[in-house]
């Protein structure tokens, strides 16, 4: 019995002037898995992720979500379909508060006339939700949810961004280098968070340069090279050095795509 991928892409092409970022790239994410995407700098990982999350529109190629062809023109459309992305730059607004950032672009309005005619935001509700989510994820102890994000440390900001994705991502969560800017202990928290989100059944795409992290949490590893997928490997059977060798072109990739689902 074969399982259908929840998110997949076929033949994605994206050019920026004379630079080819994506050269007929394929991509599959299956329900409930953590798929790591690794690749050298400039291999096109970010372009791939942007293409499936609506942040850029590919020049050609198709994206499917749950078997249906989708055509995202903005991150908003992808989000509305249940795909949440934690960007490397976090996409947080520094001067706004933690609660404001959590709800940026999907604010809750008060019910009744105040919300409908005066467009008034339901701040207590949003603050409560933000507090619940952050403590539920155990990522940090919040003293003041109205604190501006710019007064937080790098790890705390990452926590806010991950919490936002985990709180709203209903079908797929994409994380772009979530541990890159973090210390050892904060990284551990994020890895635990990834396991936590996975155990609730939400599949995760993890883009990372950190091989120990990738090999620890990933079910499958998608290796990206020169703008396309060159291999999908099983972290349990391949060594880190072989994965890096495939990634950099020092070793020929295996012929078959590792796929325990079909």
């Amino acid at each position: 019995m074969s399982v259908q991928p929840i998110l997949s892409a076929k033949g994605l092409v994206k050019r920026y002037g004379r630079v080819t970022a994506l050269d007929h790239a394929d991509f599959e994410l299956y329900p409930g898995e953590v798929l790591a995407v690794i690749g050298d700098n400039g291999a096109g990982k970010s372009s791939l992720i942007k293409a499936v999350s609506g942040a850029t529109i590919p020049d050609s190629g198709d994206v499917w979500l749950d078997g249906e062809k989708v055509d995202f023109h903005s991150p908003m459309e992808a989000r509305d379909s249940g795909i949440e992305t934690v960007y490397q730059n976090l996409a947080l607004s520094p001067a706004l508060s933690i609660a404001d950032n959590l709800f940026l672009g999907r604010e809750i309005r008060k019910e009744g006339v105040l919300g409908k005619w005066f467009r008034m935001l339901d701040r207590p509700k949003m603050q409560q939700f933000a507090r619940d989510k952050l403590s539920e994820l155990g990522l940090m102890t919040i003293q003041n949810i109205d604190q501006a994000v710019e007064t937080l440390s790098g790890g705390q900001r990452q926590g806010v961004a991950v919490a936002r994705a985990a709180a709203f991502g209903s079908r797929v969560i994409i994380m772009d280098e979530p541990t890159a800017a973090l210390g050892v202990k904060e990284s551990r928290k994020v890895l635990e968070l990834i396991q936590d989100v996975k155990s609730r059944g939400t599949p995760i795409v993890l883009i990372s340069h950190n091989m120990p992290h990738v090999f620890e949490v990933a079910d499958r590893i998608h290796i990206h090279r020169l703008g396309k997928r060159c291999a999908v490997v099983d972290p349990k059977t391949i060594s880190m050095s072989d994965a890096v060798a495939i990634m950099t072109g020092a070793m020929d990739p295996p012929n078959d795509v590792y796929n325990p689902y079909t």
Partner: protein
Amino acid sequence: MTKQSFETVLDESDTSVAEFKTEKRGFLGQIQHILHGNITIVPMIVLILSCLGFGFVAGERFFTPFNLSLIIQQVTIIGILGIAQTLIILTAGIDLSVAAIMILTSVVMGNFAVNIGVPAFLAIPLGFIVGMVCGAVNGLLITRFKLPPFIATLGTWNIFFALNLWYSGSQSIRSQSIDKAAPSLKFFGERVDVFGTQFTYGSFLMIFLCILFWYLLNRTAWGKHVYAVGDDPEAAELAGIRTKRILMSVYIVAGLLCGIAAWAAVGRIGSISPQSFYEGNLEAITAVVIGGTSLFGGRGSVVGTIIGALIVGVFRNGLALAGVDVLWQVFAIGWLIIIAVAFDQWVRKVSS
């Protein structure tokens, strides 16, 4: 969860993670931090101190109800233009054309109501539409043609001003003609008695608009998006905000505010002159900057802007009462601007 070998040493380590610890800050750092969260405190303090100072220098005459009411009347137009300017500066833009839009709008209102004889209740909304169209032109140049706001509005400032001279034939509309044909154009110049002091409706209009835009900026999603776009447009876009749409809405609303300012200006100066308020745009920017709104976007408030406009008004009025030459009023305001911006730079450093 299993740990990797290099992480086993974590067992003995401190388990506290990424907490919001209150760091020890010096006295100055503490002040910096408080101000960072409440930027309008400083203009408020400056306003109170300058009132006290001029009350001391200029004596009794400064604190008469008549004089205080006069200061508010004098800053009404710049205050309303300042609200429009604040919206735009919050998005990290700038609008050099606000005053030109206002004058063009007032000339259109006057021409339709007085010379053509259209009823005022139609001529005034028509003026608002002209203001919004002007704002939309600015917005399109900035969002669609990707021109820097400074350059786009430098261009439209000249264009709108030239159109205004052409449309009006450089002719003013006299006060008596307005009184005869469309007295409601002067509505905001009329006075009401509050606690024995005369206030114009225009003063209340400014305060009403200030409260309205405080509400819109702080209590609606649109307001949060305006701040987010000015703060970090790329992050806002990735967070799902349609930044271009927000920018367009800001420029159009600013145009509408210029139209409202035009109506109030007819009441304030009595006649309609295509040559008036030539430096209004710069005065509006001055009020915004002194009011603590950052020219880099994402930080500031309309309440600060009204306080900023009042500070300028108090300085001008106080120095005039004290018998100081006009040139020294200009001199003082120049210093106010420089100090306000230097101060903003210092407060913003709190994040780094």
